[in-house]
């Protein structure tokens, strides 16, 4: 909130007009405490060397109703930061990136018949892939819940 006030003060000093934001300021989307987050809005749940990956509540909200999820093959390799699949919503396909590197051991087949699970339950039933991590240390470079919440707020307040 403080950054918004500063932003509008700076804008009026420089005499730039602020466009009203299209979205109402909505309270931050749900963020779960024990997950890690990437800045491309994917979450990862670590369990030893195995990781479950999905997209966050913030992401599904900005996408709209998901109508199709493109899943990778079981056994495919994923690399941190690279895309492994895509979700389609409102005539837009958006790539989904993996927050960790490793091998895909399981994909959520439910999403082929019920892609809306990504919207309804992004952290639970809407999980997308399970990865056997090749480098568990990568997780430490991801954001925690509080950091991610702040990241989302900053992104939403940009305009």
């Amino acid at each position, binding site marked *: 909130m403080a950054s918004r006030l500063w932003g509008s003060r700076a804008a009026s*000093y*420089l*005499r*730039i007009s602020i*466009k009203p934001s*299209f*979205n109402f300021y909505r309270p931050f989307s749900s963020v779960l405490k024990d997950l890690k987050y990437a800045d*491309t809005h994917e979450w990862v749940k670590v369990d030893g060397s195995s990781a479950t990956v999905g997209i966050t509540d913030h992401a599904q*909200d*900005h*996408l*709209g*109703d998901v*109508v*199709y999820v*493109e899943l990778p093959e079981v056994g495919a390799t994923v690399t941190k930061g690279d*895309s492994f699949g*895509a979700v*389609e*919503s*409102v*005539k*837009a*396909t*958006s*790539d989904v*990136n993996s927050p960790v590197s490793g091998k895909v051991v399981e994909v959520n087949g439910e999403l082929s018949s019920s892609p809306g699970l990504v919207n309804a339950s992004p952290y639970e039933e809407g999980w997308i892939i399970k990865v056997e991590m090749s480098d568990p240390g990568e997780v430490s470079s991801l954001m925690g819940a509080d950091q991610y919440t702040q990241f989302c707020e900053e*992104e*939403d307040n*940009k*305009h």
Partner: protein
Amino acid sequence: MNNRFPGLINSRRFKNTGFQAISKFQAGYQTQYLQVATRASFTERRNFQVSQLGAKSLLPRSPVADENSDNFQGMRSKRTLEIWKMGIVNYLDALKLQEKLASKRKLGVITDTLLSLQHPPTYTLGKRRTYHNLLIPESELSAMGANLHYTERGGDITFHGPRQAILYPILSLREAGLGARKYVENLEATMVRLSSLYNVKVHAGESGQTGVWVGERKIGAIGVRISSGITSHGLAFNIDPDLSFFKHIVPCGITDKGVTSLRMEAEMELPEDEVIHEQLVSCFTQLFGYEHVVWKDRSFFP
């Protein structure tokens, strides 16, 4: 407008960044930017022949002004759009160009770019490969003079052809502060605004029916791909294409609705396609809030 610039020009941010990066662009772009700068407080600069100004004479050049440096990023906060006017372009050529531009945009080497063009008769399928919505065998397509292409965009099967205005924005959604849904809504609003210039009553589709409609007939379609936050593909607006091509598909997978065009819906004479393209681009730049706009004629696209 004039009052805003002194504050910006005298700021350290402007002095240290923007200008060096501009020298990377062609003279046309550089000229435009300098015009804006000289429109600031000092009247005597207004008549300055901009083409006589070299970058060296105004500001010192940084010794390492490479394209990926932070200096370049500072320029982008001014929301610049580069528009390519391209004429009729083969679908595959346009696809390759978009991929090239999208990877450049991702690296931050270029600014937001908009391609304004038309295609020869082409059917395209989206990522879901809804092949069943093509109602005739593929072999008959070449007899009609049409092609079929598979793409990674969202959306179902559609037809592109001459006299259909196409816009392919290559934007960074993150810098624009837009999510996929909001971006698509803005594309719909662009076509709605253009149609209202011709007093055609259009509305954006309800949920599941993205696009722009006149009653039960679709006048504008959207299919977008977002990869690493960069958009490609975009919108297609029917000015006066040959609508009989649409009979051979279930357009966008929606069975009980028809297709229409601006020519059929508008009760006034339409100007040349080029004018309508420019109006469509204007609606786009207004809705997306671009402050600087640079037009490039790319009709001799190799």
